[in-house]
């Protein structure tokens, strides 16, 4: 085989991304980013949305991209940080905070692992003009690490630790990412899941079910466990 993925569309976005740029993203496109990307996950969400801590000043002007990630980073001994690699963490766990977070921060691009459900896209991201990009493979930590050219700032490092702190990374040609959801709420993961599901019945044909079932078990493999 020649060059895998050569027919996929590619785009490079300057951050903060404009509404026009975001509207042009289609599920399955390959995206690279330039500008500032911030990390936030349960630690930061709880701090701001549940404990009432104010957001870092000027966040919306700096970045509208929330990366669900924790870096492998360590202090460099000169007051800065050495970032080895970054890899996304699974996003579906964060949906209960996302609506308020998007509203409070003006975030328009969410990056993570595995996407969110169709319902979350329809109810949370689409009404707030936001799309979802997924990291590739899980994870291309070294490639993404190369794309981070510096740490613009880090918030709540002492309180939340390296993994949960809010890192603001300066990035260049940061990627690859794949567009999962667009502004209409279409989802690449969901559409591929549908295609995979079509084969499942045939796959289990002739295999008898086990003697002992599990409490609460579903036998419907079209369903997701998340």
């Amino acid at each position, binding site marked *: 085989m020649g060059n*895998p993925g050569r*027919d996929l569309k590619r785009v490079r976005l300057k951050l903060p991304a404009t509404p026009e740029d975001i509207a042009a993203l289609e599920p399955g496109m390959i995206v690279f980013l330039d500008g500032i990307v911030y990390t936030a996950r349960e630690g930061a969400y709880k701090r701001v949305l549940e404990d009432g801590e104010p957001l870092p000043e000027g966040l919306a002007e700096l970045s509208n991209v929330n990366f669900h990630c924790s870096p*492998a980073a360590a202090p460099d001994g000169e007051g800065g940080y050495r970032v080895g690699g970054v890899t996304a963490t699974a996003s579906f766990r964060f949906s209960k905070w996302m609506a308020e977070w998007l509203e409070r921060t003006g975030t328009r691009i969410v990056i993570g692992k595995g996407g969110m459900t169709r319902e979350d896209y329809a109810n949370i991201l689409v009404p707030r003009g936001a799309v979802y990009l997924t990291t*590739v493979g899980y994870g*291309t930590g*070294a490639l993404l690490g190369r794309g981070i050219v510096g740490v613009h700032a880090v918030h709540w490092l002492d309180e939340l630790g390296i993994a949960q702190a809010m890192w603001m990374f300066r990035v260049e040609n940061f990627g690859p990412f794949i567009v999962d959801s667009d502004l209409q709420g279409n989802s690449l993961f969901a559409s*591929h899941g549908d295609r*995979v599901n079509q084969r*499942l019945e045939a796959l289990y044909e002739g295999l*008898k079910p086990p003697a002992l079932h599990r409490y609460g078990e579903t036998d419907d493999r079209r369903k997701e466990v998340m």
Partner: protein
Amino acid sequence: MIGTDRIEKAAFDIMCKAAIDIPQDYLTGIKGMIDLEKGDLSAFVLQSMVENWEAATEDRRPMCADTGLPRYYVKVGDKAKLPDGFVALERALRSATARATTDVPLRPNRVHPLWRNDHNNNVGLNAPEVEWSFEPEVDWIDITTVHKGGLFGSDYRMLFPGDGIDGIKRFFLDTLIAFGKRGLACQPAIVGVGVGGSKDTCMQLGKQAACLRVVGDRNPDPKIAALEDELKELGNNIGMGPMGFVGSSMVVDCHIEAGFTHTGGMPVSVHTFCLSSRRATARIHADGSIEYRTDPRWFTPYMRRETIGWETPAETSSASA
């Protein structure tokens, strides 16, 4: 005589190698899968992973920033001499873990399960795990580290003898499909299956099968080896590739380990290693010299013994024949 300083050095070095360098057997397996993959997105993902591993090795940075839960498997030769004792060995493994966390760097993933406090060094209550085994007639110590993520891709189920191979196949498919969607299992992976033992042994055997055997290795029992081939094919026939995209790349290889179990039961566990398959082994010889490799060689004939005694492999095979 194997001093503690050699153990600490070996343990630190394998921490770095595991985090950064993709094992050759796994890389060869993935390259073979790219050639067969017809899904365009699936093929793109695999090609990106190959580029990622090249970047990791060139830059000496971790392949994946989720550097998993670093842990150890130690195989001690029956004739090995440790003047400082085993407590010193365990202390050296913990010290190497903390040092690697800062120096590689590894992500400080280990937190208390309830209070969520982080020592920022991957050391804590019951962490890192150290599993022990022994090897007759030799004077070296093998230390293997595995950095495996821990959230998705593993499951356990008590099946019964009447469920048979069908039951194992169904459970294998169930686990791969449940965690393969959206790629939560970080496939294509080496998949380990534990069959038998007690619940905990079953989990342990399956995990060791996934993490401590290399692509292409087969169980010495020819019928189990055939089942390994069959399950591998079954997994790759689901129609799912990396990230849950349409494709055929799910199982790089399948390894099964078995243990004698309760007469009424057939416990089964399934474990997926990940797209980084982070493992590295150091052999510390009696003179203190260290050799590094990526094949843990954990399941020796002695590990898989079935008889009461262990005199020679020939004697064992004639006793079980």
